[in-house]
C-alpha cells in the first residue's frame, strides 16, 4: 500500500523544513504595534491622534526645559537671556528656592535645622512603615517628634525633654494602672501622670530658659514646603489614633459616647475645611483676649486634625463593619474584655482592610494643607501666590513656579501611594 502511495503523489518531502524565523509582521515591535496600535481603523485613527498630541505637548515642553535659563535676577533678565526662544525662566527657582522650601521669614542661617529634621525623618519613619526592620528602631520614631520640634522651633531643650518624660511617665502609669484597675482607670492615671510631669516641665522651663538653648523661631516665620510637611505629618499622625477612637466610639453601646462621636463626625464632615481654617484664624481671635498668644499653627493643626480624623473614623468604621460578626463573637467567647478584643482581634483586621482608605485620606489631607494659603499663611502655594508672584522682579512668571510646586507635591504623594500598594501586597492573607 505504501508503494502505491509513493507513486500516486507527485512529491513527497523526505526531510524536515529547517526552522525559519516568523514573518516580520508577526514578531517583535511590528507585531506589538499591529496588535496594540493599528489593529483596526478606529484604533489607527486614535493612535495617530495620540501621537500627534504627544508630539504637540513635547514640542512645547522640551524646548521650555532645554532652552530655559537659570541665570538672572528678575523676569526682565530672563527675557534678555532667552530672546523669545520659548525657554522657561527657571532663574526664579534658583533665586527663591530657599523661600519655596522654608518660607520667606525663616532665618536663613538656621536653614540647616529644618533640613536636619527632614533628614532625621528618614530614620524615624521607616521603622513604622517597614515592620521587617528591627523593633528597637522604633525608639527613633518615638524620639523624633521631640527632636524635630526642638530643631524647627528652637528654644530651650527643657520643653521637649519634659514633654517626652511626660509621655514616658504616662505610659508607665497606664501600664501599672491597667494591671491593677483595668483599662479605663489606667488611661485616667496615665493622663494624670502626664499632666503632672508636663506641669513640672513648664515650671522648670520658665526657671531655666537658657538651658541647651538654640535660637527660637516663632511659628509665624514658618513657611514654604516645610509648613506643608509639618502640617501634613503632624495631622496625619494625630488623626489616625483619634480616628480609631472615634470609629470605635461610633460603634459603642454607650449612648453618650456614641452620640458624641456621631455628632462630631457628622458635624465635621458636613463643614468645608476652609471654613474650619477661617474659624481657626479669624473667629478664635475674637474670643481670645488680645495678647493671648495661641499659636496660629497649633490652631490650624487642631482644625485640620479634627477634619481628617472624622474622615479616617469613617474609613475605619467601614473596616470594622466589613469584619464578619463571628470575629466579635469569637473574641467574646474567648473571655476577652472590650479593650483586649479590640486590640488583639478586631482592630488588626479592620485596620488592614482600611489601609487604602486611610492612605487616600492622608494624600488628600497633605494636599489640602495648601488651603492655609487662604488664611495668609505662607505655605508653598501661599509663597508662590503671595510674595513671589507679586514681587516686582518676578511678576508674570507662572509656569515655572507652579511646575516646581507640582513636582514637590507629586514626589511625596506618589511615594505615599506606592508605599500603600506595597503594604497591601505584604498584608494580603486572604485567598485571592
Amino acid at each position, binding site marked *: 500500500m505504501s508503494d502505491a502511495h509513493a507513486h500516486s503523489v507527485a512529491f513527497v518531502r523526505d526531510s524536515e523544513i529547517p526552522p525559519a524565523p516568523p514573518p516580520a509582521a508577526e514578531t517583535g515591535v511590528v507585531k506589538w504595534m499591529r496588535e496594540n496600535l493599528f489593529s483596526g481603523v478606529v484604533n489607527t485613527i486614535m493612535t495617530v491622534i495620540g501621537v500627534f498630541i504627544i508630539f504637540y505637548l513635547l514640542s512645547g515642553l522640551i524646548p521650555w526645559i532645554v532652552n530655559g535659563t537659570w541665570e538672572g535676577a*528678575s*523676569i*526682565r533678565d530672563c*527675557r534678555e537671556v532667552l530672546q*523669545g526662544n520659548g525657554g522657561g525662566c527657571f532663574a526664579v527657582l534658583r*533665586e*527663591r528656592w530657599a*523661600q519655596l522650601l522654608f*518660607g*520667606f*521669614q*525663616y532665618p*536663613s542661617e538656621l536653614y540647616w535645622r529644618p533640613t536636619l529634621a527632614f533628614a532625621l525623618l528618614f530614620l524615624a519613619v521607616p521603622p513604622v512603615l517597614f515592620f521587617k526592620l528591627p523593633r528597637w528602631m522604633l525608639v527613633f520614631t518615638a524620639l523624633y517628634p521631640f527632636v524635630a520640634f526642638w530643631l524647627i522651633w528652637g528654644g530651650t531643650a527643657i520643653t521637649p525633654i519634659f514633654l517626652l518624660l511626660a509621655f514616658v511617665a504616662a505610659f508607665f502609669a497606664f501600664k501599672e494602672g491597667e494591671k491593677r484597675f483595668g483599662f479605663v482607670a489606667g488611661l485616667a492615671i496615665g493622663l494624670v501622670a502626664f499632666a503632672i510631669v508636663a506641669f513640672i516641665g513648664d515650671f522648670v522651663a520658665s526657671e531655666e530658659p537658657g538651658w541647651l538653648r538654640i535660637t527660637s523661631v516663632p511659628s*509665624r516665620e514658618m513657611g514654604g514646603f516645610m509648613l506643608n510637611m509639618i502640617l501634613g505629618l503632624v495631622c496625619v499622625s494625630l488623626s489616625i489614633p483619634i480616628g480609631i477612637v472615634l470609629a470605635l466610639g461610633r460603634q459603642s453601646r454607650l449612648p453618650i459616647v456614641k452620640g458624641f462621636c456621631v455628632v462630631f463626625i457628622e458635624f465635621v464632615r458636613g463643614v468645608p475645611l476652609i471654613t474650619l481654617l*477661617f474659624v481657626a*484664624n*479669624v473667629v478664635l*481671635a*475674637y*474670643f*481670645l*483676649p*488680645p*495678647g493671648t498668644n495661641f499659636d496660629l499653627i497649633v490652631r490650624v493643626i487642631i482644625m485640620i486634625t479634627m477634619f481628617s480624623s472624622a474622615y479616617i473614623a469613617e474609613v475605619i468604621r467601614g473596616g470594622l463593619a466589613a469584619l464578619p460578626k463571628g470575629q466579635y463573637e469569637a473574641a467574646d467567647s474567648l473571655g476577652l474584655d472590650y479593650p483586649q478584643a479590640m486590640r488583639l482581634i478586631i482592630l488588626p483586621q479592620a485596620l488592614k482592610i482600611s489601609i487604602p482608605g486611610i492612605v487616600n485620606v492622608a494624600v488628600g489631607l497633605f494636599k489640602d494643607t495648601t488651603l492655609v494659603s*487662604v*488664611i*495668609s499663611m*505662607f505655605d508653598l502655594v*501661599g509663597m508662590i*501666590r*503671595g*510674595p*513671589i*508672584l*507679586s*514681587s*516686582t*522682579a518676578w*511678576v*508674570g512668571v*507662572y509656569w515655572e513656579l507652579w511646575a516646581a510646586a507640582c513636582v514637590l507635591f507629586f514626589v511625596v504623594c506618589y511615594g505615599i501611594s506606592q508605599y500603600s500598594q506595597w503594604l497591601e501586597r505584604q498584608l494580603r492573607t486572604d485567598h485571592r
Partner: protein
Amino acid sequence: MKNSVLLGTLAFAGLAAAGASAATLDDVKARGSLNCGVTTGVPGFAEPDANGVWQGFDVAVCRAVAAAVLGDPEAVTFVPTTGKTRFTALASGEIDMLARNTTWTFSRDTDLKFDFVGVNYYDGQGFMVPADLGVSSATELDGATVCIQTGTTTELNLADFFRVNGMSYEPVPIETGAEAVQQYLAGACDVYTTDRSALAAQRAGFEAPDDSVILPEVVSKEPLGPLVRHGDSEWADIVRWTLNAMISAEELGVTKDNVEEMAASPGDNPEINRLLGTEGELGAMIGLDATWAKNAIAAVGNYGEVFDTNIGESTAIGLARGLNAQYTDGGLIYSPPFR
C-alpha cells in the same frame, strides 16, 4: 447652665479685651514692636524681597510709624493679610494698624468701625489697551470688548462711564487679575480695566510693556490709605501725623539725606523746626519723643522719596505722580500744617 457660664466668661473676656486695647500706644511700647497689617504681596506696595525683608510703598508707612513710636524702623512685625482677613485682623486687635492699599469708603469708615487716617495713594480705575490699537483716549473705545473682574466696583464704574459717554461695549467677565492679564495678552479683549496702579504693576511684568498703553482717563475714585480701629483717637492721631510728617517733609524739602543735618542745626524755617522737634512741643502733644518725625523721615524718607524708590517712574512699575503729586504741583497730596 454651663454654656451660659462659658458665654458669660467669654463676654467678660471680650469686654476686658476692649478695655485693654484702648491704649494701643502703650501696648505697642510694651511689646516693643508694631504689628502692621500688609498685603500678601502687591508689586511695589508690599512685597518681601529675596532675603525676606518687606519692601514697598505701604510697608514704608508701617516703618515710619514704628520709627516715630519706637525709634526703630525695624521694630515692625508684618502681618500679611488677605482681602478676606484684613478687617477681622484689625478689628480683633491682632494688628495695630492696616496699611494694605485699602480704599477709603463710607461703609468701611462707619459700619465696619474703622478710622481711615489719611490717603497715601490716590488710585482710580483706568484702561489698558494694546498700543497698535491706536487709541489715545478712553472716549474712543466705542464698541470695544472689555476684560473686567466680575463682582467688583470696577464693573459698575465701567458701565457708568460708557453710559455717560454714550458708547457701547462688550464685557468679557474674568475671575482674577492674573487671568485677566492672560486673556488680555491672548487678545480675548481689546481693553483691560482695573485700578491704574494694578494696571501699571501688571504691565511691568509683560514681555513687551511698551506694546500696551494705559489711557489717561480715570473713571473712579479709589483713595487708598492706612486705617486703625475706632475708639483710640490718640493712636489714630499718631498714625495720621506720621503720614502727614512724610508729606510735609517733601513739601518743606526735608529728605532722608538732609534730615539729620537740619535737625542738628535748626534753620530759620519755623515749620521745619517744629516738624523736626527742634522748636515747640509737638511730640509731647501726641505722647512721643520730640524727634518722632525726624526718626520717621530718617528711616524711610519723605513721601516723594518713598514714592520714587518703590513705585515711581524710575522703577519697573513706573507710576507717574499724577494725582499723588504735592498740591503745589497740581496733585492732591496735602498735609495740614504742623503748628
